[in-house]
Every structure is written in structure tokens, then in C-alpha cells.
């Protein structure tokens, strides 16, 4: 990208204008995410920089919105010591939402990663029939608009046995809507395309002769899988799992349609907060989520490098 020494003055101007333009676009990408971090320490309930903040007056800054995350919904915010923490753990809305998000995220990630990895192994075999069509079906939860998916799930989870009545059965089964199982299955469905995509991408570079070598040395298919295949594709599986987890952790639409009041997740709580009583507490949550996404991004990047190193792909 360096400017050649023979560049004409016009080309120089153009080159620097181009770099300035790129800098502006990077600013557009990052600034909205960064700007909320200082605003979350605003002492006033405003969404803008107060004069005191701009003067760097310590009075203008406060962590009150962070502590309000703990106390919001508590029975006795005045309690001290152990009672305070147990109350926050049991009752505070944001804490409950975080617990739910983690439970639902982890369970749906396990389902999505397990099924998705198996399917990716099958899909990457050369003899797989109808590969393209099946792949298109399995990726479709990512492509179909979320509102359509959520609407379909809304009816299905309200009465999951309705389908069986079509074939003449009249089974009794409960609602999945408003249950943890329902939300977990829905989120697993939405996370599966990401697992498929990342794991098949890892398997493209996988050398099948390693499996044959293991077999020729007397390993049975299971040993081959756990001792040879799995360690090599593990980085892909883990990053697929992370994608699935983030999908679940960030998902609102399906939760709005099928979750009950007990399955309040962080995004749903944020959604309610934005629509009803908007307060800078939302920005405190947002800041925590940004820190969380930085941690995830770092993990994925490290995994990618490790994967390339194991497979002997030198980073370009």
C-alpha cells in the first residue's frame, strides 16, 4: 500500500485522501461502541456528555448505574453484607437475566455443537449424497428472517403435538413455550448454521490420509476420531461453539415470542429497558457486553492462529 516514489502529486493527494477516508470509516465503525463506555459513568441520568464530564470533574462521574444493575428488582437494597449479595443473586432483575442467558446459552451451545459437528463430519465426506441441498437446509435458519422463524416457533412451541394430530394421533403434551427447554431448542436451531460453517471450513483443510494412516496402523474408527480427527478440528469446533453461544446470548426475537417471564434474558431485559424506562443503566450493561465481546474476539483470534499453526498453514 506504500506510495511508489514515482507517484505524481495528484496521486499523492488521492492516496492521502483515501487513507483519510478509510480512517473516517474506521471511526464510524468503532466510535459508536466506544462512546457509550464513558457515558455509562455519567453521574446524571442523561445520555450525553455533561459539562462536568467534559471538564473531567470527578463529580461528573459515578458508578451508580453499575450498582443499580445489582439493586434493580431487589427486595431490600438497604441490606448489608451477605444478605445484600444473596438478595441480589436471588432477586435482582439483571442478575437473574444474566443467569438465564448463561444457562440457555450454554445448553443451546452444547446441543448445537454436538449435532452440528456430527453433521459437518458427514457433510465433508466426499461420498455424501445431496450435499448441496442438505447444506442449504441446514444453513437456512441463518438466512430466513428472524421474525418468520420466531412466528413459526411461536405456534409450534405453544402446541408441539399439533403436528401429530394430522396423522390421526391425539397425544397429550405440554407447551414448550414459556419453558427453558423451548428457548434452548430455539436457540440451538439458530446457532447450528454457525457451527456447520466453521467446522466444515476447518474440515476442508483436513488431510483425510491421516485417518487412513491411523486405520492402517490398527486404530478402530472411534480411536481414529478421538485421537486424530478431533484434536485437529477442535479449534474449529470451539470457535463454532463460541459463535453459537454468542448467537444465543444476543438473541431477542425468538425469546420475545416464545419465552415466559421466567426466561428473561439479558437482551430481552435490555429490549424492555430501551422501550420503557430508558436509563443509563442500559449503557452500563452495554459496556459490560462490549468488554465481553472483546474477550470473545480475542479467544476466537487465538483459536484461529492455533488452528493454522497445528494444520501447518503459515499465517500470511
Amino acid at each position, binding site marked *: 500500500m506504500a506510495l511508489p516514489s514515482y507517484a505524481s502529486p495528484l496521486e499523492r493527494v488521492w492516496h492521502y485522501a483515501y487513507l483519510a477516508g478509510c480512517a473516517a470509516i474506521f471511526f464510524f465503525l468503532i466510535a459508536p461502541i466506544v*462512546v457509550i463506555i464513558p457515558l455509562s459513568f455519567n453521574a446524571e441520568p442523561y445520555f450525553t456528555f455533561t459539562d462536568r464530564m467534559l471538564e473531567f470533574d470527578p463529580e461528573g462521574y459515578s458508578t451508580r448505574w453499575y450498582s443499580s444493575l445489582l439493586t434493580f428488582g431487589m427486595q431490600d437494597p438497604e441490606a448489608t453484607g451477605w444478605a445484600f449479595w444473596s438478595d441480589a443473586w436471588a432477586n435482582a432483575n439483571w442478575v437473574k437475566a444474566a443467569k438465564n442467558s448463561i444457562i440457555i446459552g450454554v445448553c443451546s451451545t452444547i446441543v448445537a455443537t454436538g449435532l452440528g459437528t456430527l*453433521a459437518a463430519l458427514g*457433510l465433508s465426506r466426499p461420498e455424501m449424497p445431496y450435499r448441496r441441498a442438505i447444506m442449504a437446509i*441446514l444453513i*437456512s435458519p441463518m438466512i430466513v428472517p428472524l421474525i418468520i422463524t420466531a412466528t*413459526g416457533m411461536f405456534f409450534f412451541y405453544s402446541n408441539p403435538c399439533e403436528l401429530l394430530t394430522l396423522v390421526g394421533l391425539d397425544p397429550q403434551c405440554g407447551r414448550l413455550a414459556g419453558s427453558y427447554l423451548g428457548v434452548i431448542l430455539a436457540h440451538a*436451531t439458530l446457532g447450528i448454521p454457525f457451527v456447520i460453517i466453521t467446522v466444515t471450513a476447518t474440515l476442508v483443510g483436513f488431510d483425510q490420509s491421516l485417518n487412513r494412516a491411523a486405520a492402517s496402523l490398527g486404530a478402530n474408527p472411534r480411536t481414529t476420531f478421538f485421537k486424530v480427527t478431533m484434536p485437529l478440528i477442535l479449534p474449529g469446533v470451539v470457535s463454532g461453539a463460541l459463535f453459537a453461544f454468542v448467537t444465543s446470548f444476543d438473541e431477542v426475537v425468538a425469546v420475545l415470542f416464545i419465552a415466559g417471564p421466567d426466561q428473561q434474558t439479558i437482551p430481552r431485559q435490555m429490549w424492555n429497558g430501551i422501550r420503557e424506562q430508558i436509563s443509563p443503566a442500559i449503557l452500563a450493561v452495554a459496556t459490560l457486553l462490549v468488554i465481553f465481546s472483546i474477550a470473545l474476539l480475542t479467544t476466537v483470534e487465538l483459536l484461529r492462529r492455533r488452528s493454522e499453526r497445528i494444520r501447518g498453514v503459515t499465517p500470511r
Partner: protein
Amino acid sequence: MANAALDPHAAIATTASGVGSGLLTTEDGKPLARALVRSQRRARKRAFLLVLPLLVFILVTFVVPIGQMLTRSFHNDGFSANMPQVSAWFAETERGTPPDEAAWTALATDLVASADARSIGVVGTRINYDMPGTRSLFTSTGRQVRGGMEPPYQANLLEINEDWGDPRLWSVMREASTPLTANFYLASMDRTRDETGAIQQVEEQQRIYATLFWRTFWLSAVITALTFILGFPIAHLLATLPMRRSNLLMILVLLPFWTSLLVRTTSWMVLLQQQGVVNDILVWLGVIGGSQRLQMIYNQTGTIIAMTHILLPFMILPLYSVMRTINPTYVRAARSLGATSWTAFRRVYFPQTLPGLGAGAMLVFILAVGYYITPALVGGSSGMLISNMIAQHMTGTLNWSMAAALAALLLGAVLVLYWVYDRLVGVDNLKLG
């Protein structure tokens, strides 16, 4: 087998099997060709069995529920199931037949039965979809006739409410007397049926769906174009910088990609509102006066800005992965042959980026067409998309058949785009991060 000795492979196979017959056989004496077919079939089956659990899972939790939901767009038995006698009369008579005494008797019997079974609300709601304002006609009549009704039915019903004589109402009831109907699709294209059953456009101020579809596609196209304009230079810069520095800048693209959608939408709400940071800066710079703060949110501007920001990484990443593979010597060769840098870009570099551009544009457009959260939060009423209308029918007006019809049209559009995407790019070439 004269030339078997000349074919080294055959020689090996025959020696291995130890049989000197004409066919090539495996060690245990089976014909080789058949054994090969069988082992291939077994391998195919094994591969398919690995995929099967997930395929079943997706079919049960995703494909079938959506199909089931879509059947509501053309199947609604709210009227026909609860008003059997008048439905039967409609089935026996021609379209356009004025209601005779038999029809009034059937209607009165059904109304009484439905009022007693407390299903009159469902019936009224179904008719209300096609003829707004009629739900109360059914419910109020139902309250008065509960427990029975005396003949003459026509005169008595007309006495309760003379709207029962409206030929348009009878035409709408005829439409609703079969559970299968195309009316919800007509309505989603701003069409309706008049009393003779002919299709016509609804009045001008009620034509909302066509506007909404048009707006959805238009805004998605604008957003796709904006992501291209902003994403192309970035992808180019990342692809041409040395790896170490481009990796560092890549983080600036990936961080928004990994940040929660709600966080990014919230940030834009904070930035763009009238007392927000952007307006503050503009006032401070003196671009606008303190009293003329710009309305940049709760309208189309808000939707466009926030969605462009959210979808930009989906344009940059495919463009980047294609640009990395473009050999820089082609551009240098063009320059050395006398092309200006603009010509070299236009004739040599840009055509090679088209696969990435196609992939990115399709992806952004598909995602934008179905967007719900961001327009719902920052779009106001003029930045609303078709998804928001579907949600409105699902949770607000509870007209589920209408929601299903709109969803079917949207899904159809997305599936066509997806099919094109698969043709152009191939879904298995989709890359993340």
C-alpha cells in the same frame, strides 16, 4: 482371458483372489464391481447417518413449524367451523345469490348456536379481517340472541341491526365460508373483493402493504449500496496492507461484528437523539443552531444509519477474502502498459473483486430485508420494515393469518435471493470472521 496377463491390475486381482475365472473378484470370491458398489453405498449411508440427527432436528424445530405457520395464510376456519349451516347454504348457492329465507334461518340458527358456545367473537374477528368494523355487529347481535330466537328471522335480525342486510357483508361471509381462502394474500397486496366478489384495489389511504414492501426493498438496497461504498475502501486497505498491520486494523472490523446487536442499536440511539452527542457536536461546531437540532432517529435516517453500521462487516469480510487472492502484479502490468491508475482499477482490479462484491451485497441485502430489532427501536413509523408489520399482526392486532401471508411473501423473496446467492457463491463458501 488372453490379455489378462497383459493387464497388471487384473493380474494382481486374480492372484490376490487366487481364482482363475474370468471375473475380477475380491479375496472372498465376490465379484469386485459389486463389492465396490456395496462399499460405496455403505460409505454414503454412513455419511448420511452422521447428518441425519441434525437434519431431523432442523426439520422438526424449524422447517415444519414455518410450514405449519404459513398454512394459516390460506387456511382459516374461524367462520366456517362455527357457522356450519350458513356455510352449507353458501356452498349450495351460486355466488351473487341474494339471501333467501333459508339463508336467514341458517344464519340465525348459527348465530344462536355460536353465541351459546361463546365462539361468536372468533366468527366476528374472522369477518372483521375482510370488512373492518364488523366484529361488534357479531358480538352485539350474539348478546341479544343468546338462548334462542323467534322467526321471522330476516325481519328480526334486521331489527337488531340493519347492517345484516348489507350485500357486501354477505359477500364477505361467502368468502369466509370455506376454510381455504386467498383473501389474506389479496389484502397483503392491498387488494380486496367487492360485493360481487371482483378483485379491486383498496382505497388510497389504506394502501399500506405495497408501500411497506416497496420501502423494505428500497431501504435494503440503499443500505447495501452504502455498505458497499464504505466497505470497499476498507476491504481494499486491509487486503493490501502488510499482514501484521492489517490484522490489527481487522480488529476494528471484527469488534463491531462481535458486539451485541442491542448494544450497537442502543449506541446509535444515544448518539443520534436530539439531545445526543452528534447533535451536541454539530451545535458546538456551529453547523446548526441550538434550536434546530436534527431529527436523526425514529425515522428512516435512523434505520439507514444504524443498519448500515450493523451490516457493514458482512460486506467487508467477503470482499476482503476475495481481494486477498488478487495478484497485485496484474495492476502493475496494466500500469506499465500505460494505463492510468483509474483505468487500471476500473479495467483490471475491480472486475476481479466482483465475486466478493456479489457475495457481500447478497448477504447484506438478504439480512436487511428481514431485519426487525433495529427498525423497531430506531425506525419510528417511517423507518418501519415489513418484519415490524408481521410482528404487529402477531402481537398487536392478533390477525395471525395476515401475519402468515406477509411472512410467506417475505420468505418467498428471501428464498429467491438465497437461491441466487447459492448459485453465485455457494452456501458452503460462506465464511465468518
